[in-house]
């Protein structure tokens, strides 16, 4: 079937699916059946090819940043913005962006893919660039062992034809540079000595951080003050005002900077780059702030022990009513053991106002053993939100939540305040 026909069919299916309120991946499935090469042919024809961003933590925020940074360098960027971070979601996103003749008006495709899906994806569509953020214990009930996950990322790197950008501080990511095929280059982003201790990997949870490394990094996050970050690049320090919150998000900014610098090459415009960086806002649920009854409500997504620890370190509890919402659906991780690898001492002084979610009592039990006082517990997330709202009407609120708890909270919040719509 000629390409314009495929494109037209896909777009119609997408339109109908959306009218019926269907999911984002179904139109992609239809196209896969009709023309399995559609996605590959469309993406590989882009002048700057495909960029894959993968890793355990920070994919969504880093992808969003990279897109905005590349746009600041004059690139037209296609991305899987809907957060369908698997291949079919990519096809579905493509259908939204192509015209009825099947043309995609873009220079480069920046795609967020989860590790397992990325492995299959790169076998059919080799990326020109990839960015590998980290390997942490995330839903081991899904991928098995952390070394298996690291192996998946190494596979993505090996399929990359141009440059792989790697996290210098991750003991499972950095050595991927040593096993790249001939012709594939590597670049690193990293942390200064002083910041490194703030970013424990899973290996470091109960041991001292080993700080010996010898690799040069293209971009180093030097230090962070309240609203500014200092990046070291091109042998000088660049201070940037940021709208992003949390050390972890800001480290991802270093990743996005290194990746963008690599891709931009001769188009590189530092002034535009740093100015775009200062405008980047967090992706939904990654420290986004809503307003409820005139008070801020921060939603902080937590998915795994290291992410939760970093979130607790990034956001000081002072002045906030803290809520934690833990579900155990597939997307959250079924296994609750990860809560025991997070240290909640920082919440001891002020206690936790509300615990909610299917596994609220597992969370409350966890807090009991860190001797953190818990005011109220309910397995109903929406009820937990109502309690929090009623009991702390004049206080800023912060909610640490797992993925499906966050979706539920956003839906509940959408009924009582303004919440940005997610496609």
């Amino acid at each position, binding site marked *: 079937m000629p390409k314009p026909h495929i494109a037209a069919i896909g777009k119609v299916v997408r339109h109908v699916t959306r009218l019926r309120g269907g999911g984002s991946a179904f139109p992609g499935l239809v196209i896969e059946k009709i023309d399995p090469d559609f996605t590959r042919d469309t993406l590989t024809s882009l002048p700057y090819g495909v960029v894959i961003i993968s890793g355990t933590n920070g994919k969504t925020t880093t992808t969003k940043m990279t897109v905005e940074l590349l746009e600041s360098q004059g690139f037209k960027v296609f991305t899987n913005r809907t957060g369908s971070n698997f291949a079919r979601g990519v096809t579905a996103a493509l259908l939204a962006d192509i015209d009825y003749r099947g043309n995609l008006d873009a220079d480069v495709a920046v795609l967020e893919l989860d590790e397992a899906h990325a492995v299959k994806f790169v076998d059919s569509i080799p990326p020109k660039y990839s960015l590998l953020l980290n390997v942490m*214990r995330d839903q*081991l*009930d899904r991928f*098995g*062992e*952390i*070394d298996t996950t690291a192996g998946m990322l190494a596979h993505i790197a090996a399929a990359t034809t141009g440059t792989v950008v790697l996290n210098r501080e991750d003991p499972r990511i950095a050595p991927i540079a040593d096993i790249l095929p001939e012709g594939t280059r590597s670049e690193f982003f990293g942390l200064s000595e002083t910041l490194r201790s703030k970013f424990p990997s*899973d290996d470091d*949870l*109960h*041991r001292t951080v080993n700080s010996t490394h010898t690799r040069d990094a293209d971009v180093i996050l030097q230090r962070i003050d309240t609203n500014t970050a200092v990046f070291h690049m091109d042998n000088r320090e660049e201070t940037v005002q940021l709208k992003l919150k949390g050390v972890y998000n800001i480290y991802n900014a270093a990743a996005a900077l290194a990746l963008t610098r690599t891709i931009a090459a001769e188009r590189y415009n530092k002034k535009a780059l740093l100015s775009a960086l200062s405008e980047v806002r967090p992706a939904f649920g990654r420290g986004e702030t809503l307003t409820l009854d005139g008070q801020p409500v921060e939603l902080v997504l937590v998915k795994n022990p290291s992410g939760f620890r970093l979130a607790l370190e990034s956001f000081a509890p002072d002045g906030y009513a803290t809520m934690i919402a833990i579900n*155990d659906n597939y997307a959250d991780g*079924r*296994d*609750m*053991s*990860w*809560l*025991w*690898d997070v240290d909640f001492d920082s919440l001891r002084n002020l206690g936790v106002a509300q615990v909610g979610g*299917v*596994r609220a*009592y*597992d969370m*409350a*039990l*966890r807090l*009991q*053993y*860190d001797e953190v006082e*818990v005011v109220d*517990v309910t*397995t109903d997330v929406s009820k937990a939100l109502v309690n929090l709202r009623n009991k702390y009407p004049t206080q800023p609120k912060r909610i640490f939540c797992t993925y499906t708890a966050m979706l539920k909270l956003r839906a509940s919040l959408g009924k009582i305040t303004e919440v940005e719509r997610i496609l």
Partner: protein
Amino acid sequence: MTKRQLTIVQLYPDDMNIYGDWGNVLTLKKRAEWHGFDVELIDYNVGDTFPDNADILIGGGGQDSGQLKVQADLQKLAPTLQALADDDTPMLMICGLYQLFGRFFKTSKGQIIDGIGIFHAETHAGPERLIGNIVTHNEQFGDIIGYENHSGQTFIDSDMQPLGTIVRGAGNNGQDETEGCMYRNVIGTYLHGSLLPKNPAIADALIEEAAKKKFGDFTPTVIEDRFAAKAREVALKRPR
């Protein structure tokens, strides 16, 4: 009067420590404190000198790579650990170290990792991971509730007692309805999640045995276990 002290030794926390194993250590430590003891917590890692005052030993899970790292050291320690086990020292070994407390673990590549044989049991890498919520039953401890995630299939000899019989879940091997293994006061199990916070009866039994052995008696304190009770209730109803 100075408080009575119990020494808890954590085996190989650097290499064998995933799936919330820290939760088990923390639970033992806190509950022992709540029962009125001072607690000394000692980490034992590869190459360290083994402490001579261990009252409770606890060890966790690891990836295959972690098991390889501790293998040689564990062999050196084997006579000491066997003597402690024979002398009724309470121990809790989860996942990876449970396997290595058996005779051997045979990996998916056919490699044999020698264990120390305190449990008369052997483990073979299975074709699939056994993953999910699990409930077993033990006469002394009641329902034991946790989460399992292992590819090794363990078979215990007929002269060994399992820790529990399966209510739901896979257990030792997904075939014979057994989960875990017991030898004197040594408990081995695949349940993490973590095991002890949601199963305080096991934590208290380990502490009680250690206290009786060291001081001849044990007077428990009543601990508020409301959250544990509710967490158990919820976990019982969650799908596999």
